[in-house]
């Protein structure tokens, strides 16, 4: 089975409390933040590796990111993918989900053909959850997202369980498919030392706008139907009165507060 995994390098979600907006320029300050594989994309990659173990074939990583993200793709290769295709071009900067999906779909076509495209369901940074469906549309593949369980038979027939509010939905269909994977699906394997060694020799292809043959007006900020305005940092600051004393003293104060809000008679 030929599988593409969409892998997005994102700033480490554990450090989002450090993200600031420069008050002078209004630009996002994210210096010093580590870059990691988008957490859900690891689950997508795990699913792909399991299918490869079941059916043979290859797993390719595809992403759009600055060239400095090579290390993050190397991690995906260390986990077990065969090769990586990194779409990197100044022209891609500032892309919204649709402009991003155009680049990813073009790369999937060029690196393909693939039977299956797996992605995370939501990225940790932008987090629109649009990309799986939009890549599916642009490829002309059927697609499902928020996938929490799936099986693909050797006949190419897939049964897919997607998460819904307070439950799930079970769908059936044929490959090729795009599936947006949630973390509930599996537990990603640890990278092994042998994997790290092997990854050093695996190819990472870097593709530019020209390599993908895309129109400049369809990618990046210029090609994005949504345009960003101002950025804010939600001001959640409250008065922060410190309640001091022993536990029983604090408890008495809290009961007083509960009373005054009317939640306790």
């Amino acid at each position, binding site marked *: 089975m030929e599988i593409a995994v969409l892998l997005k390098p994102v700033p480490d979600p554990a450090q989002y409390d450090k993200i600031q907006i420069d008050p002078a320029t209004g630009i996002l300050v994210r210096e010093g933040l580590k870059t990691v594989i988008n957490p859900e994309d690891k689950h997508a990659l795990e699913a792909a590796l399991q299918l490869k173990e079941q059916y043979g074939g290859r797993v390719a990583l595809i992403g759009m990111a600055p060239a400095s993200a090579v290390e993050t793709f190397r991690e995906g290769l260390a986990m077990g993918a065969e090769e990586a295709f990194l779409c990197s071009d100044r022209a891609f900067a500032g892309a919204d989900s649709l402009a991003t999906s155009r680049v990813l779909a073009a790369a999937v076509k060029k690196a393909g053909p693939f039977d299956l495209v797996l992605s995370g369901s939501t990225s940790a940074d932008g987090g629109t959850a649009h990309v799986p469906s939009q890549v599916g549309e642009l490829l002309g593949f059927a697609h499902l997202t928020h996938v929490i369980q799936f099986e693909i038979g050797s006949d190419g027939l897939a049964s897919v369980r997607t998460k819904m509010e307070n439950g799930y939905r079970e769908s059936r269909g044929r490959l090729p498919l795009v599936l947006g994977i949630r973390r509930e699906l599996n537990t990603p394997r640890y990278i092994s030392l042998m994997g790290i060694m092997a990854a050093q020799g695996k190819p990472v292809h870097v593709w530019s706008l020209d390599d993908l043959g895309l129109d400049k007006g369809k990618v990046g900020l210029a090609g994005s139907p949504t345009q960003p305005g101002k950025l804010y940092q939600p001001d959640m600051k409250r008065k922060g009165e410190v309640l001091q004393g022993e536990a029983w003293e604090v408890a008495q104060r809290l009961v007083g507060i*509960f009373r005054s809000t009317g939640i306790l008679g």
Partner: protein
Amino acid sequence: MAEKRLAIWVVVEQNQGKLASVSIEVLGQAARLVETASALSGGVAVVLLGDQVGDLAEELSAYGVDQVYWVDDPRLKHYQNDSYSGVLQRLVEREKPDILLFGATGAGEELAPTLAARLSTGLAAHCTGLDVNADGQLVMKVPAFGGRVLGEIFCPNTRPQMASIKPGTFTVPQRRAGRGEIVREDASSLLLDTDIRLTTVDVLQSEPLGLPLEKADVVIAGGYGMGSKKNWGLLEQLAAELQGAVGCTRPALDEGWTAGEHTMIGTSGKTVRPKVYLGCGISGAAHHAAGIKDSGVIINVNRDALAPAHAYSDYCVTADAKKVVEALLEEIRRTKNEKRGR
């Protein structure tokens, strides 16, 4: 009367004959926009898809809706992306609304981006604020980085302007007097069998037991700092004493201490706005904080004086959460007994 332009469409969601609450919440925003935005002319329409859902069309028409597009067909019984997006695409291309709004549910998060891709238009995800500026453009406020950052999004050059809204972001509006017109559409011209590539074979949804978090006046939220399933029991006792509900962070959920995923609060969970929120052993990551910011009083107990959670609290307690919860239980029970004694 001249035919009223229907500027804003809300795509509503029904599951097995029940309207999703988020659809009504979104409708409330649509009604607010047409009433308050002077640069926006036109009314509100909803699109309802399903199988024998006429009574829902009636119900919807009472929320300040000018028109209900009702498409009824056995093939639309369950949501399925191919069939639903096929119908919606044809309707939108025919009627050309300015604005198209969705609930960001499991289904909505497939449908909205699918349509945006087909229509080559912009979609703003998980809006926490919607406004119309002087030029009549929709200003959509969206979160990123787990809620740490909010950004304005515009869709200047393409139509419709699309946006999705998460459940619980806005409150459910009051029903209103008057009712909109229900227009039953001809499903056969809107839905083609060739649209359908995937079939829905089963749907399972069941309301969880107990008081839903989003309806509770008191939310006792626990985090990884609670330390064990045993300590978690204290939170449940406290919630019971206060007739509230217990919420959790993702690490606490992952530890298996909680009643389940439906109790998780934050960007990938519930949004709550109780009168009192008490956080215990929660660091206060943006992902969690995004789900509680509209709460009445926010209290946090964390043994780390510098925990980010303290910064967004009305009251901070720097102490062991287990000890404070135990003391609270004792104090509440004591005062209740005193009252009874009197």
